[in-house]
């Protein structure tokens, strides 16, 4: 049934999956670890750029054909024809992009934060990461050989070999949601492990954590590697979803969106963060669909701006009246607690 409702649902769930991964990774970094990552977009973008590079360079090699110039129309046509005729190569390229993006983003996250995490004041880390995001965008959009500068590069969906477009987006949505669910389970396990408790101790009292012999610089580095790698995965998923890698998608407001999801839903509460992602997706998709609908009737282009005003006001309201989010952090219930409660 190729009806608009179904495709709206598929697009909603796909965006939700991507937003959920981003916000869960920021929740791990800031909600649990107290590391203010104001450069989330840098790692999200890294993932997308890796996807662009892999799809344009590695794909012909995987499919074993002579590559054309990746940014020429012939190169684009070649990618599309490989995808349609060789499902194995298409899926392998996608898998390679995911693995490489996680690796590159993770390493990038560590390198960028290397100097800043050595300074006690986390404000420096926030500033360095924010600035890195913008440098990356400006450089990639100016330097042609990466993803064709500001022209961007087309990358075909890994399920491009399926018969009709509804099937393609449905299959891809399932992949996004599967990855999002496994990341959710992974982060839930992680924050309930000794590492998770270490993160919380770092967030709540650095001096106390250090006095117990914890190497906080190391922990900060680790949490930023994990968070950045996850954001890189989200970047690949987004790039393949939109079918197009464009450096100008990755403006600092994207970082702010992720912060809104985390703060809105509830810091250090993964369920709350998922709720935040749902709300954010609803605002994002809702205004988008409304804008397209209105444009076909009357032509009000300014509705896109309204989205940002809504998000900004939402953030201010939540900071003002419900600082701990809709679903606040829950106290940890250990087995010992249950024994005490039971008596």
């Amino acid at each position, binding site marked *: 049934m190729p009806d608009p409702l179904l495709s709206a649902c598929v697009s909603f769930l796909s965006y939700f999956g991507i937003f959920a991964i981003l916000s869960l990774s920021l929740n791990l970094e800031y909600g649990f670890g107290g590391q203010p990552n104001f450069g989330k977009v840098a790692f999200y973008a890294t993932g997308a750029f890796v996807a662009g590079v892999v799809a344009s360079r590695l794909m012909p090699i995987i499919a074993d054909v002579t590559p054309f110039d990746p940014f020429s129309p012939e190169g684009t046509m070649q990618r599309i024809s490989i995808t349609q005729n060789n499902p194995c190569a298409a899926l392998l390229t996608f898998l390679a992009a995911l693995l490489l993006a996680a690796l590159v983003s993770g390493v990038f996250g560590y390198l960028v934060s290397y100097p800043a995490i050595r300074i006690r004041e986390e404000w420096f880390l926030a500033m360095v990461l924010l600035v890195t995001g913008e440098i990356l965008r400006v450089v990639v959009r100016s330097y042609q050989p990466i993803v064709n500068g500001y022209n961007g590069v087309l990358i075909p969906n890994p399920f491009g070999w399926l018969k009709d477009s509804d099937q393609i987006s449905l299959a891809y949505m399932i992949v996004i949601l599967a990855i999002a669910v496994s990341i959710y389970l992974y982060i839930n396990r992680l924050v309930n492990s000794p590492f998770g408790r270490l993160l919380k101790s770092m967030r709540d009292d650095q001096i106390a954590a250090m006095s117990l012999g914890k190497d906080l610089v190391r922990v900060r580095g680790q949490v930023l590697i994990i968070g950045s790698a996850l954001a890189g995965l989200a970047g690949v998923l987004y790039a393949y979803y939109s079918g197009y890698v464009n450096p100008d998608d990755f403006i600092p407001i994207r970082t702010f969106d992720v912060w809104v999801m985390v703060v809105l839903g509830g810091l250090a509460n993964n369920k709350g963060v998922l709720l935040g992602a749902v709300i954010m997706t609803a605002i994002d998709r809702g205004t988008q669909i409304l804008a397209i609908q209105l444009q076909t009737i009357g032509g009000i282009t300014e509705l896109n701006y309204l989205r*940002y005003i809504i998000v900004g006001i939402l953030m201010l309201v939540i900071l003002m009246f419900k600082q701990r989010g809709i679903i606040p952090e829950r106290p940890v219930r250990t087995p010992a607690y249950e024994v005490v409660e039971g008596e």
Partner: protein
Amino acid sequence: MLDWIAGSLLRSILVGSIYTLMALGLTLTLSVVRLPNFAHAELITIGAYVAVLSSLVSSDISLALLLAFMVTALVAFSCHRLVYRPLSNRGATMYTLVLASFALGLVLRYIILLWASPTGYLQIRPLIPQRVIGVIGSTVILDIFVWSLPTAFVLVVLLHLLLSRTKIGKMMRSVANNITLAQITGINVGRIQDVSWLLAGGLAGVAGALWAILYYASPYVGWFALLSVFAAVVLGGLTSFSGTIVGGFIVGLSENLVMDLLNRSFGVEFTYKPVIPFALIIIVLLVRPKGLVGLLPRAKLLTRSSTKVGG
């Protein structure tokens, strides 16, 4: 060879003095209120548009600057009273305030866009007549250069005198230095913060108006300038006023003179220009996180060792 150096040096000083005005406001809120105010960008934009609107009525430049000062000071003051102060009273941490200022900036920016887009004000110059009085290298010298540079310069000097010679300036510095100690000595910290916001907003407005007169006004003007301004503040050591002044001029120089040099000698494209302030921030944070403070005489008196708030 010499004429293009002279030309870009002139532009460097001009842009540098405007950056300094913008950065001084940011330093003021950063040190007195302890808030890295991202909405500072929108104060600059508002100043730029006030200059455009005032030029519709009269082409008097001093009127435009005065109006820009007053309107933006009021906007900054209301932001403080409506958003930042209530938040601080609820025990907000610095990151909460940063997020709030980012949100506030976003709301203001897109409200301006919402207004400017249908009215055709997306990229506009104030209707102030200008004359070309000379060309040095590739830099066209307009008559507004001749007075806007001294204006910016005089404002910087006035602010410096205000902070170093007057009683209210002394109070501001003491609040910046140690808020508890200032309170104990009987300084009305709330009032000092009000004054700082008025001043910071006004400075941003004047700088925005100057920018609009020299270049153009657009809803993104402040946002594009903000990271350069942050670079100036970081260079200056975050909370030092004299450091910020030097930082503003260094950023101005590196974005113009150094960029021109890189372009001529190494063929670096001008599209990379936005990287320069970012690179400066990263280098300063790597090499000398305290900025230029300590390299300058007396700068120690004006700084706080830490910018962290509460817990």
